[in-house]
């Protein structure tokens, strides 16, 4: 009986070691070009390519899962997945709850897009996604903040006149403004946050270091900059 128990314990230890090797990456899947679902319903985008490359460099087996933006941090800390790569800016508030790797996209500008040049950015209605640094910025700017659960809805709100302007990461807005003749950027770009980083649990220091090293190696050999230029265009900010 004792022997049986011991064997089971060893078997479990064995699976535990294996289990460690699968890292689940959580993303939103609704924020192109960072992450979105392609025509086959698979996670795609800049972060998909980057995440797969990081896992390859760190010898991790990775799996992508999608999660609602609103509950993306609670589900990380309760261990439903291990990493967040969802265009998440590194901020002090988030850093209190989870840990971030070093940034994999440099602190990029956020921008306002609107249907008319005269959109009132200080006193009007500005749409932003809930729980983002952009939403916090709009709330502080004096404009009326209109929050939406998904990035797509913030743009739709401007198109149907519900909001005067949308405030979001410029990299997200560029393809939208390019495609839609009626939409244009208004006002000045606003630099916000400390760049995008991958979020991990505070107790998961080892994983954070592994990913950090992988990001560093991509920065060192220039492949991260190439990837940024490929996805965000020639004018995108790159690492020095």
């Amino acid at each position: 009986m004792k022997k049986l128990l011991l064997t089971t314990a060893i078997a479990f230890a064995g699976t535990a070691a294996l289990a460690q090797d699968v890292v689940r990456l959580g993303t939103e899947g609704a924020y192109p070009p960072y992450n979105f679902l392609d025509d086959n319903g698979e996670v795609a985008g800049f972060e998909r390519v980057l995440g797969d490359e990081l896992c390859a460099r760190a010898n991790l087996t990775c799996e992508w899962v999608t999660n609602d933006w609103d509950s993306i941090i609670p589900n990380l800390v309760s261990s439903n997945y291990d990493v967040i790569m969802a265009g998440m800016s590194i901020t002090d508030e988030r850093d209190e709850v989870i840990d971030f790797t070093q940034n994999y996209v440099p602190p990029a500008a956020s921008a306002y897009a609107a249907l008319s040049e005269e959109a009132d950015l200080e006193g009007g209605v500005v749409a932003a996604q809930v729980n983002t640094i952009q939403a916090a910025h709009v709330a502080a700017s004096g404009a009326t903040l209109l929050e939406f659960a998904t990035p797509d809805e913030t743009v739709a709100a401007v198109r149907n006149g519900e909001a005067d302007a949308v405030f979001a990461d410029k990299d997200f807005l560029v393809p939208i403004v390019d495609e839609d003749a009626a939409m244009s950027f208004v006002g000045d770009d606003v630099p916000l946050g400390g760049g995008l980083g991958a979020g991990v649990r505070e107790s998961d220091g080892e994983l954070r270091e592994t990913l950090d090293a992988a990001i560093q190696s991509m920065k060192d050999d220039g492949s991260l900059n190439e990837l940024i230029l490929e996805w965000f265009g020639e004018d995108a900010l790159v690492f020095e």
Partner: protein
Amino acid sequence: MFAFCADPDTLETARWFACYLTTGKHMVFYSSFGTVLLLLAITAPTALAFGFLGAMAARGPAPLSWIGKTYIAIVRGIPDIAFFLFFVIALDQGFEWIRHQILCPDWEQPIRQGNDFVVCSAAKLPLSSSPQWVHEVYGFLIAVLTFAIVFGAFAANVLYGAMRAVPQAQIETAQAYGMTPRQTFWRILVPQMWVYALSGLGNLWMVLIKATPLLFLLGVEDIVYWARELGGAKTPRFTDYPHGDWRLWYFLFLLVFYLAFTKISEAALERLMARLTHGQAFGARATS
């Protein structure tokens, strides 16, 4: 799907739509209807069982009836959405905590480290090494359980009322024939109470059908999630099938689906009612 879909930009409307509506993403959308129907098919009987137990407990002797009544009162009193957000995390962590105690007795670190909930990897549910479908099935089962607990409380209240609505004379007659309380309950009370319960349960069923979008809160991608995702404006850079904001059309489709489903349910409930009242002096009951 079709051979001519290789270059969607060049297609005329009908063919473009044939391709568009058969992309992998749309297939997931169609299969999510199956997910919703499956959820209803499993949840309804489970919730009814919860309700039956709840009602039986509420009618029982003192300590048992407190449990039954507390269950009914708490679940009915708390907003669904709060319950759903709480349960998906609390149930999941509860299961993992129990497994952790059994599987990893010599684990030294605390389970709660600040905000983090960390159990040994053998206790993870499902194991992080298991394939994605296991995670999805697990999420689905958590959803079923949560729905069953919530709707079970409402069903318990309906059944509790229905049991009391069965005419006292029926019970007394049963006793006069020398039936035990157990026999009275199963042979006289239960068969007759369904009639009184049915309209209340029918309402619950309708509410349950409409509550399925709460699934996405539990991480299950349901039809409303996919309608929103597919209907959102798509720029040509990220898809072969760019289009504007089509959420209106997708939601219109959902509206038709829900209306049709409600209509079918109503017809089914009506037939069930006719069957249950068969031979019973219900509705046109004389006062003799």
